[in-house]
């Protein structure tokens, strides 16, 4: 029998309905099947039952056994792997950034020392310009106490 045969048997119609995609079962029935259904109450009822069956299957819900919760929770890793990976990536990135910063800083300092532009200062004066206290001041024969040498340097800062 041709699929386009307008006079389909009940068996063929029900077979078509049972095999139909749910979308087609709901709304996209072929014209010849639709014509059969409009004239055949048992087949129309059959289609209704299939639709009810579909609705029932769509809403089916069986409660999970109570032991599933503790079992699953115990089976979880201590920390999400994705989080651990993310943390590793972040820490690695931070370490690289710090290393780059340190290398750049060292290079800059080296350049400053070589060019003299980065001479360290004390009280606004280059350290090299400050005359260290004479070592003679520490001579056992000297009358000047070492503390006085240091305090004289502090006095220069204050001034």
């Amino acid at each position, binding site marked *: 029998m041709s699929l386009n045969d307008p006079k389909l048997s009940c068996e063929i119609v029900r077979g078509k309905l049972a095999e139909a995609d749910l979308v087609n079962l709901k709304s996209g029935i072929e014209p010849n099947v639709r014509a059969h259904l409009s004239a055949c109450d048992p087949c129309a009822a059959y289609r209704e039952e299939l639709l009810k069956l579909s609705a029932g299957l769509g*809403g089916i*819900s*069986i409660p*999970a056994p109570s032991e599933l*919760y503790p079992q699953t929770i115990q089976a979880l890793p201590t920390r*999400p792997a994705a989080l651990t990976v993310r943390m590793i990536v972040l820490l690695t990135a931070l370490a690289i950034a710090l290393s780059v910063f340190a290398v750049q800083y060292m290079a800059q300092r080296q350049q400053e020392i070589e060019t003299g532009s980065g001479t360290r200062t004390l009280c606004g004066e280059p350290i090299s310009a400050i005359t260290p206290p004479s070592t003679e001041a520490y001579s056992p024969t000297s009358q000047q106490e070492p503390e006085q040498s240091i305090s004289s340097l502090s006095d220069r800062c204050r001034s």
Partner: protein
Amino acid sequence: MEPDGHVSVLDMREDQTAALQHLGDAELVERARSGERAAFESLFHRHQDRIYTLALAIAGNPSDAKDVVQETFVRAYKKLGSLRGDRGVLAYLRRTATNAAIDVIRARRSDREVSLESFADGGESIADPANGADRFVEAMSDSNSLMEALLSLPDDQRFVVVLHHLEGARVSEIAKILGVPTGTVKSRLGRGRESLRRRMFSEGAE
């Protein structure tokens, strides 16, 4: 609560989990991602029944279904970094559970050395549905009866029916998953539906 009246760690967790139930999936995932374990447990509570139902319907027995659910949520926990959105979580869980359950079926099938194509296309006569429609509807509203009927189907038919009706997969998609022609999927769907209809109808009419 434990028998001696002390509140167990699990009970405390369940309280925390219940407190998070008002949050959407996306926010729970975000919190779980930042290390809040109770947020993930809340997700588990929210979706466990749906995933268990799906796993049971495909795998065919409670023991395998429990394994599938456990595996599904452990995989989801490991994949927290890539889970997205409110709809994405459930979709991921369903897809993972389906795949895990398929693996269970395949493993079982290879154990039994039963081929996918071994079920003959037996043409069953069609019962007249004109009687007992109300009882049929009552039976349909009972998930346990329906699940029992589903589990009575051969694996191949049940798998197609579940994918189509519980997962919303189209016939062509199921054919791709199974690697069989769409005609085979339609045939299994037809036989599966018809068996279910007969079973639910006759049980309701008793």
